[in-house]
């Protein structure tokens, strides 16, 4: 009796629920399911369609407005849209997006992660990429590196012999990557920036270095000092060199004689040629290319 009763009750009540389960069971997890069919009153479908099309149209208009807001003035005028002024929020918005990307780059950075090194057979040619004119080599004979913002409060001047005799030199064959997309594998020799920081410690609150070259020229050959911001975490990376040699030879004028920065974890534009001054600062200093619309951090 009991057994029969137990068997009967579920079979009458649960049957409609059990049946579809028994159909689904042999079906593979990956097998395509039928599209769920639903019954709707035409009135409901019309209402939903109207709502969805309105949202779609609003989205399309928003996309057009967003495009008009963000696109470069040159592009817009080429397609016939002329506007005398860029909207004020545009630069702010794009810089905000760029800052997010810089923050991502900073999170990805690791002070202990080495960049890949290559063999001598993998070396490629590296063009002279001075943005303006290449300086006249006359500056080299009187060249000095000035250090400022030190813990001692002094301003230190070093010539190339001081640097090469006081510090141990390191060699590395690394890739230099340009913001434009090209890259070159080259063999560099120089002292570690980290060793310079240890020998001449910056003031305690310093987080940044401003690396400058006063010999940089613009395209028409006029003085155009180059200044670049570098976070001290990157300066302390073991592969960040103050390079004196390129492919086994002392740096030529093309490559920033007598001392250039080689920071392979940054874009090429941070690799300042012919450095004349390094200043340590608590606040982020100006940056030549950031002022021309590129990123500040440039970590790669």
């Amino acid at each position, binding site marked *: 009796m009991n057994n029969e009763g137990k068997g009967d009750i579920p079979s009458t009540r649960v049957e409609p629920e059990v049946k579809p389960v028994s159909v689904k069971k042999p079906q593979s997890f990956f097998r395509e399911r039928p599209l769920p069919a639903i019954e709707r009153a035409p009135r409901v479908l019309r209402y939903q369609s109207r709502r969805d099309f309105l949202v779609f149209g609003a989205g399309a208009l928003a996309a057009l407005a967003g495009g008009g807001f963000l696109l470069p003035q040159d592009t817009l005028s*080429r397609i016939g849209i002329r506007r005398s002024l860029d909207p004020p929020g545009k630069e702010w918005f794009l810089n905000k997006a760029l800052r997010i990307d810089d923050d991502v780059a900073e999170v990805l950075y690791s002070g202990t992660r080495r960049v890949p090194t290559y063999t001598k057979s993998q070396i490629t040619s590296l063009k002279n990429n001075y943005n303006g004119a290449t300086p006249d080599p006359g500056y080299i004979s009187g060249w000095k590196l000035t250090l400022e913002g030190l813990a001692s409060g002094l301003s230190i001047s070093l010539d190339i012999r001081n640097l090469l005799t006081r510090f141990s030199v390191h060699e590395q064959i690394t890739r230099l990557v340009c913001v434009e997309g090209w890259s070159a594998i080259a063999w560099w020799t120089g002292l570690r920036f980290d060793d310079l920081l240890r020998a001449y410690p910056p003031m305690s609150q310093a987080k940044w270095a401003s690396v400058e070259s006063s010999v940089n020229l613009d395209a028409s050959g006029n003085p155009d000092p180059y200044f670049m911001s570098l976070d001290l975490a990157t300066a302390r990376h073991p592969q960040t060199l103050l390079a004196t040699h390129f492919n086994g030879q002392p740096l030529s004028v093309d490559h920033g004689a007598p001392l250039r920065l080689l920071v392979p974890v940054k874009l090429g534009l941070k690799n300042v040629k012919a450095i004349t001054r390094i200043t340590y600062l608590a606040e982020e200093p100006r940056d030549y290319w950031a002022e021309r619309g590129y990123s500040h951090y440039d970590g790669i």
Partner: protein
Amino acid sequence: MSHSTPPDCEPNSTSTLSEQPTVLVVRKHHFLVRWSHWLNVPILLGLILSGISIYWASPIYQHKPDPNSGNTDVAADIGIWICAHVPGQHHYSSPPDWIYNHMSLGPGMLALVLRLHWLCAYLFMLNGMVYVAGLVRGGGWRSLLPRGTDLFDALTMLRYYLGFFFAKLARRQWLHPVSNTKYNALQRAAYLSIPVAGLLSVATGWAIHKPMQLHWLAALIGGYNSARVWHFWLMWVYILFVVPHVILVFADGWNTLRSMIVGWSTRVERSEVVANEQ
């Protein structure tokens, strides 16, 4: 039609709509899939146009400098050829820039287009996550999986497309191959290729963007330069997909286009069959 209605349909829902006959529709696309589908239009357009502007700064395809102009860019050569041979373009002011002026945001604006490219790239990644969430929640991912019969079915579909215009010209009947799945084999391959290309574009993009911190990613793809080449050609996957995609959706009709906006379709044939099985 009536047999397709599930027998356990709640009586109260039909009674409230008793004055009007109801329409049977199928749920075709999850709303997250629809949103991400349409968001892809401006995002991919932004990525491609800014991407070609970035390409201008350092073209992958270069040759030895031309003795007369010093030009090394193959894309500039194509522009020069177009201006020399295409009617109406003979007086174009800067032939080497023709490609960049017509197919990108423009030459000589690297800083700005890099910012736009990264903005669009982050949006593209977010949108990809929305799409995947929609595929998972709506179960649509199952319709994209390749099957054993796909090769044969794809050839059947190709035969249909190739013969379509001849049959029309000859006024012969030319029946669409029967398919009992949401997509035919060719559609499935095309629709799956886009998320796969999206994933590869993102991976190669990161490999180019962070070649030092993510050097293992570039190494997977064959190095930094190879990642750039892949990233460039992946762009063509979207372009080559979009052209037939747009043609075919208009050829297929309003119901299909509308289903990507509203989510449902009135084509219920296949669901009827399945409802019978249950």
